[in-house]
């Protein structure tokens, strides 16, 4: 219980900056989730595990002496094919069915991935050291690792690239058309099956980028996936589908919330507070809507 945070403005600034840099990463993952949710109407519980897997790819490059920052390029390539593989094996059978089926099926994938990663990489908490050093601000009262700044920058670059790609390219247009109306898109000659596979692949690639960045800036562990899923779900329901500025803002907001929860409640309650926030947000939305006799659906 550290209430220093209100007495010393420097700690507040530190927490805010940390939170914003962290939140940009969350927003990147959440953008992937919004994409597949909007296009395929699937909630992917394995989202966080894809992130962690991407992180391990970067970590392995680091172990073999390659600078982990290259993971930002390599990891999405590998993860794209992992995503397409998952789609072909499992997801294409649950796309048109009840949402709960997709939640449960991806929950199964999540457990599978968690355990396979545990076997392959061990249960240790690992970190790929980028050796970027740190930046000191305000007479070294605020300490920012350069790797965090790097990761936020790369996330923004990737997000901008993706937005342009979705606007301009043929596949991007097909994806957006499918999201609007899958049947109409099919009639007009869009191969929706291919679009779905590509969407899932792009989502996995985004997770790969985010994972590589997380392995540089924070730590990764095989069982750390679920919190990332919940965070991205939370960001999407706060921002709404297809609202990119909203996703970015609520991602940063969540990052700042987490940093403050960390300072005020202690690190052991950090993950718990994230999950509790999700429950509170949903309950708040529910009461707000029920005044109009509507409900979240």
């Amino acid at each position, binding site marked *: 219980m550290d209430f220093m945070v209100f007495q010393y403005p420097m700690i507040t600034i530190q927490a805010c900056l940390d939170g914003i840099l962290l939140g940009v990463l969350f927003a990147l993952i959440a953008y992937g989730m919004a994409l597949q949710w909007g296009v395929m109407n699937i909630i992917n519980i394995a989202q966080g595990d894809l992130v962690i897997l991407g992180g391990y790819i970067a970590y392995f490059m680091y172990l073999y002496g390659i600078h982990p920052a290259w993971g930002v390029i390599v990891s999405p390539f590998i993860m794209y094919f992992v995503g397409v593989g998952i789609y072909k094996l499992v997801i294409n059978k649950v796309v048109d069915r009840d949402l709960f089926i997709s939640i449960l099926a991806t929950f199964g994938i999540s*457990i599978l991935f968690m355990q396979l990663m545990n076997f392959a990489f061990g249960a240790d908490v690992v970190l790929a050291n980028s050796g970027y050093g740190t930046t000191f601000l305000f007479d070294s009262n605020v300490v920012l690792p350069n790797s965090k700044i790097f990761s936020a920058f790369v996330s923004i670059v990737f997000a901008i690239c993706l937005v342009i790609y979705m606007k301009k390219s043929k596949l991007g247009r097909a994806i957006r058309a499918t999201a609007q109306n899958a049947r109409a898109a099919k009639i007009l000659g869009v191969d929706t099956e291919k679009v779905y596979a590509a969407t899932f692949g792009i989502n996995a690639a985004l997770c790969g980028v985010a994972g590589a960045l997380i392995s540089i800036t924070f730590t990764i562990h095989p069982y750390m996936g679920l919190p990332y899923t919940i965070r991205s779900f939370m960001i999407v329901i706060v921002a709404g589908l297809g609202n990119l500025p909203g996703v970015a803002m609520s991602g940063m907001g969540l990052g700042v919330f987490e940093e403050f929860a960390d300072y005020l409640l202690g690190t052991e309650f950090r993950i718990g507070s994230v999950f509790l926030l999700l429950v509170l947000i949903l309950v708040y939305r529910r009461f707000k809507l029920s005044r109009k006799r509507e409900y979240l659906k």
Partner: protein
Amino acid sequence: MNKNIILYAAILIFGLAAPFIFPAFKVQLSILCVLIVLATTWNIQGGEMGYNTFGNILFYGLGMYLCASVQVGMFFPLAEWTESGGEKTFVHTPAQFFQGMAVGLVVAAVIPTVVAGLIGYAILGLRGHYFAICTLGLGVAAGEISGGIEIIGAGQGFTTPPFPNVGGLEARGEFFYFLSFGALVLTFLAVRAIYSTRFKLILNAIRDNEDKAEAMGIETMKYKIIGWMVSAFFCGLAGGIMGGLVGYIDSTDVAFDGREMGVFMVLMAILGGKGTLWGPVIGATVFHVFKEGFWTFFLGWQYVALGVLIVVIVIYFPEGIMGWLREKYPERFGEVVDEADRKAQVELK
């Protein structure tokens, strides 16, 4: 009807005799009873009401912690107990143990029911996947938060009072078996009684179309909360028994174990066939036999097997065993089948 009574009597006699027929499997049989209770109570939400919850694990874990805390706290200071790791400094006499267990189980059943009633109004207003994810978050949050509370052992866990020295290991196994079997019988009879009333029809109406049910004048929220409270009551009871049986409570690995128990109960109900009385019972039995039989082969790979199992069941077998039987022998489920209709079906295929 007559046939049913014979069937129930046979199962009851088998259940009472089981620990003496298979003395080596007493613990496994007790766990099976607890699993059936969990699957049956999940089915009230997931099967009959159409509210797929991952959050019933909350009541299970709550019951587990409450039962153990009451059992210790009635006679000894709780904080010192958890700090010393339990049995080393304080010893329950047999009378204290059984008294504590009895009071603990009552508390373990009642408090989760109250909790379900209190949070029910807020949580059950959500629908579909929002409800599923919200309850998932609730379960994980409970695990994370209880892992940070000192008085119940925080990260190092909580040792429940050891069984007193009367009759040794055999007596311990039999005590917990009959306790869990009693809970199972109680749950089954209660759920069966509920399913024969209007209440079940209301739950089914909520599942099929909640808005229409409301338009028909049913106070859906009231019935949803009551349904959840029934689930919470038996989940808490099962948790309390399981805590004593396992002998050790850890916040995320035993009590609020969303990755194991939380998924198991969903999986068992779906495997057996959700929305039926016997489905969860059959599903839990098949699942438990499979789990115990094959877990040793998959040593270390059991979660991989679990993940694959979830995906396979959900994708290829969503109707479950009872659903499959119903399709195969519709007459036995009281459905009238027109012969011509069936022929037409076959021809269509």
